[in-house]
């Protein structure tokens, strides 16, 4: 498929990282840094007899969004699950560090990741820590960092922590966000704690609808590149500051969540307490109907992030 198609119909979930970023930004404006021609490939994967990618599973560069200059990074979930290896992580870190000098209107992170690439675990883990520090540096300098989550690999492990560091997040229904993935919980704690084959349970617990209703994400998109583009344009305008007042507000917001919902066993119990009349109907609800309901949940929208 060519990189640029019709963003109105192009599925975010199905698209590649390159298609997402090319169609998210203003047409023809994306310019890649350290692109595939530079052959920046993992020095470690050959030890494991694993194939490499010319971009190590992440595309970084600049362009414009609604006419404003932005930096953007897009993870490719189809290469090693979009996981953070040494080069993959370093490309994101370099982009974020440059933001302090380039001063774009925003840095966009198109998450699609299972977390740390185990074959390069120490490098990936350290890069995640470097990324979080660089995001807070950028935010403190007044640059919005916007996360977009709706890819096939979701946003797991350290990716979930990075997402929690962003100024704003947009998700689609497929946009799962969590630290421990379903298989990790099941492997370590047993199927009675979390049955990873129960897909409905996975969506209810980690999926975009639950994250939007509880205010873990700031916008909910239908699964098209055009919807994510509009969400990103809107979210840049409303990004919260990074200061003590914001963190105090976030402390209060998260404490209130634990206090109210700490005894809930299932997401549907939380949704009921949030005032949703028929929580069992939420998973099958259309995007439009869901957005209407989410707009009525006061806890879903805030500046405490």
């Amino acid at each position, binding site marked *: 498929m060519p990189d640029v198609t019709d963003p109105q119909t192009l599925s975010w979930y199905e698209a590649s990282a390159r298609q997402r970023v090319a169609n998210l930004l203003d047409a023809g404006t994306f310019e890649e840094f350290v692109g595939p021609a530079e052959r920046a490939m993992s020095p470690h994967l050959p030890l494991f007899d694993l194939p490499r990618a010319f971009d190590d599973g992440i595309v970084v560069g600049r362009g414009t969004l609604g006419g404003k200059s932005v930096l953007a990074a897009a993870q490719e979930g189809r290469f090693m699950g979009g996981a953070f290896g040494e080069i993959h992580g370093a490309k994101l870190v370099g982009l974020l560090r440059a933001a302090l000098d*380039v001063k774009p209107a925003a840095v966009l992170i198109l998450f699609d990741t299972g977390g740390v690439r185990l074959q390069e675990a120490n490098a990936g883990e350290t890069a995640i820590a470097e990324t979080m520090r660089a995001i807070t540096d950028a935010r403190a300098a007044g640059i919005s960092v916007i996360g977009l989550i709706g890819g096939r690999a979701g946003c797991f492990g350290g990716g979930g922590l990075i997402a929690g560091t962003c100024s704003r997040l947009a998700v689609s229904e497929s946009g799962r966000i969590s630290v421990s993935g379903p298989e990790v919980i099941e492997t370590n704690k047993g199927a009675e704690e979390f049955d990873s084959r129960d897909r409905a349970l996975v969506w209810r617990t980690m999926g975009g609808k639950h994250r939007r209703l509880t205010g873990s994400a700031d916008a909910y998109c239908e699964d098209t590149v055009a919807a994510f583009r509009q969400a990103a344009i809107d979210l840049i305008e409303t990004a919260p500051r990074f200061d003590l007042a914001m963190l105090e507000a976030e402390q209060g917001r998260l404490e209130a969540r634990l206090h109210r919902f700490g005894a809930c066993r299932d997401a549907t119990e939380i949704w009921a307490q949030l005032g949703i009349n028929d929580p069992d109907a939420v998973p099958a609800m259309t995007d439009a109907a869901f957005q209407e309901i989410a707009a009525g949940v006061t806890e879903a929208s805030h500046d405490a992030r």
Partner: protein
Amino acid sequence: MTLADILASLFPEGHGVTVADGLVTGHGPLDGRTLHVVGIDGDTPLGVDGALTLSAAVLDVMRAADKAPILVAIDSDSQRMSRRDELLGLNECLAHLAKALLLADRSGHPTIGLIYGHSAAGAFIATALATRVLAALPGANPSVMDLPSVARVTKLPLEKLQQMAKSTPVFAPGLDNMVAAGAVHVVLDPERPLHAQILGLIADLPSHDVRDRLGQERGGRPVARDIAARVAGQARAG
């Protein structure tokens, strides 16, 4: 060293640091000023509740605005792996704790990590790895994932991984490999008073994130620094 040994070596005049449910909070006198301590003891997993307890302690320190340093002492498990924690937004709670430490550091409170036991994955990222300088004591065991679990995920035989781990620091668990990656800045000497060694770290804070330079110099992350610099260079060359 145990936490009690560490606190005795740090605060010869006594201290007010306590442990409850594996969470460490309090402070003690350090060379005429206050050193705050937050942390995790006893290989305890870090869940939503613990993360918010620790972040509240960090925010309390910041409100005082006296620029007092914060020691983040860690002997933890990984993040708490449970349905409840993920349902309640563990990623937000862990990120919130990391953000609190990163903002404290930006606001002039030096943040010093001290890993003296185990730590892994999300718990490690949200605590020790969110400090300005991360020190370790010999015997510490930071990891992303233990080798038997890596073997399960990568479908490689454990014996082969153990063999590879001897020559390849980039994926293998353990303190030496995290030092090689640049994640751990320095290993302290347990035979010398920690008091002086921590004061030395506070006096000599790196002005920016030097972990990729350390990883390059020590060979554990041979290319990260150059790649980050190349990307940043192309971004700046508008």
